[in-house]
């Protein structure tokens, strides 16, 4: 079979600004395509992205050639396969279960959300991205992980610095210098909490990992916490911002959502429509074929779940925000062994707590100028501002 066609024209700037028309075109004409500017083979159809993620033996996460390792100062579970990955993941998974959230945390999350809602000025136009979405996601994560008094600003800064390091595919020294400093701060903070969590076993991820019968090494406990910081703030933040935008720009749907209290369904549609994590990489371990093209061993394929979530073969009107779909088999949380460990947490916190709390508090809020909302991101995506008039 032939090799996949090459796309020399699409650049990272266009993908960052608005990838959706590009993906739509790719799905129609070149669903498997080698994108020169990114150095990856893009897979834009739902069947291909799922097939790749469900087959970790052929499509490995264990890619030694990514900047994640220097950024996190560790070979993290995100970049492992098989038994080692499962052991490190299951070491913290119990902290992220629906039952633990319900029993231990739901009331705390409501209080945290209410505290931020209390601080918002009624009648004024406020950027909810900075005033609500980011900080409340950060504060909730601090509780889930058991990170003591780490404040929202610090958590968001650590998160962004880790992400910037992990995305430093140009291998420039500055982002790694910044992530090194963040690692030193995090390590010191984690060190200061160990005695407390050992003396006071609790349902936080840190305590569960430390107090396990057969704990994973401390270095991997720290790596897991950093992965959760890097991956547990921007995604709920971006999901919440996307949901608010989707509802406020579709007032008919908003009314029906309120009437039916269909917040969970709204959440699913928001993360389908604009998946907070848009693309993932897998290293090809053996020669194979996808969509009629040879994919050689050593190639790196990129599953574009942002595109899979709008695939015409799966979704009608996939480009539109439509809460009341019959079915919504999106891939926003991925598939396979690396299926998002925080999926239950995200559904409970963003979908069941934050979103309804906001719309109950400000039932008549409006978005004065939807055009003023800017969307950014290729790997991660969401609005970067969200001016809303609170009423």
């Amino acid at each position: 079979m032939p090799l996949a066609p090459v796309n020399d024209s699409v650049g990272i700037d266009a993908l960052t600004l608005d990838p959706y028309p590009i993906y739509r075109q790719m799905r129609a004409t070149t669903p498997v395509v080698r994108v020169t500017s990114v150095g990856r083979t893009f897979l834009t159809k739902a069947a291909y992205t799922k097939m790749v993620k469900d087959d970790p033996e052929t499509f490995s996460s264990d890619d030694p050639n990514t900047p994640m390792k220097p950024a996190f100062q560790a070979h993290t579970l995100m970049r492992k396969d098989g038994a080692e990955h499962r052991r490190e993941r299951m070491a913290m998974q119990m902290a992220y279960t629906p039952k633990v959230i319900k029993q231990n945390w739901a009331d705390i999350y409501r209080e945290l959300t209410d505290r931020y809602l209390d601080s918002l000025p009624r009648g004024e136009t406020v950027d909810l991205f900075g005033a609500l979405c980011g900080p409340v996601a950060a504060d909730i994560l601090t509780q889930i992980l058991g990170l003591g008094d780490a404040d929202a600003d610090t958590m968001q800064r650590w998160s962004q610095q880790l992400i910037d390091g992990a995305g430093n595919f140009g291998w420039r020294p500055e982002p790694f210098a910044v992530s090194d400093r963040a690692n030193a701060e995090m390590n010191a903070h984690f060190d200061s909490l160990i005695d407390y969590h050992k003396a006071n076993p609790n349902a936080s991820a840190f305590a569960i990992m430390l107090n396990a019968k057969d704990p994973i090494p401390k270095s991997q406990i720290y790596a897991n916490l950093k992965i959760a910081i890097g991956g547990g703030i921007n995604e709920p933040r971006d999901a919440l911002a996307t949901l608010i935008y989707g509802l406020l720009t579709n007032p008919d749907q908003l009314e029906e959502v309120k009437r039916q209290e269909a917040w969970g369904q709204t959440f699913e549609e928001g993360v389908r429509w604009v998946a907070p994590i848009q693309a993932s990489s897998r290293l090809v371990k053996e020669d194979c074929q996808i969509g009629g093209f040879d994919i050689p061993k050593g190639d790196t394929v990129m599953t574009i779940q942002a595109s899979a979530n709008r695939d015409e073969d799966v979704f009608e009107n996939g480009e539109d925000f439509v809460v009341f779909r019959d079915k919504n088999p999106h891939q926003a949380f991925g598939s396979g062994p690396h299926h998002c460990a925080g999926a239950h947490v995200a559904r409970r916190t963003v979908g069941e707590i934050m979103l309804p709390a906001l719309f109950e508090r400000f039932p008549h809020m409006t978005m004065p100028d939807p055009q003023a909302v800017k969307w950014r991101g290729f790997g991660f995506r969401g609005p970067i501002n969200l001016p809303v008039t609170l009423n």
Partner: protein
Amino acid sequence: MVKVTYIAADGTTTTVEGEAFSNVMQTALDNDVAGIVGECGGSMMCATCHCYVDEAWQGKTGARNDGEDDMLDCAAGEVKPNSRLSCQITLTPDLDGLVVHLPEAQY
């Protein structure tokens, strides 16, 4: 083909034919049976394909697989002695006629 009956929490009963040696989760997805999500595709990583094996069939479906217990703890619904992750139940020919009950919610 192997016949499987899914009984939803509200009593809705759906009987479908699954491919031999497929699994109970995939068979539900292939036949649009509501109540099983199976978001991780059978990797035992999401606990969204939780089911309760009908008591009459518990002997034939066998014991839980390695790692299944831990992941069941992550399920949204109550875990009972007959709880299984349906992705871990292979449709061997002797399971023809299998009945499973579904929890109210998978997440």
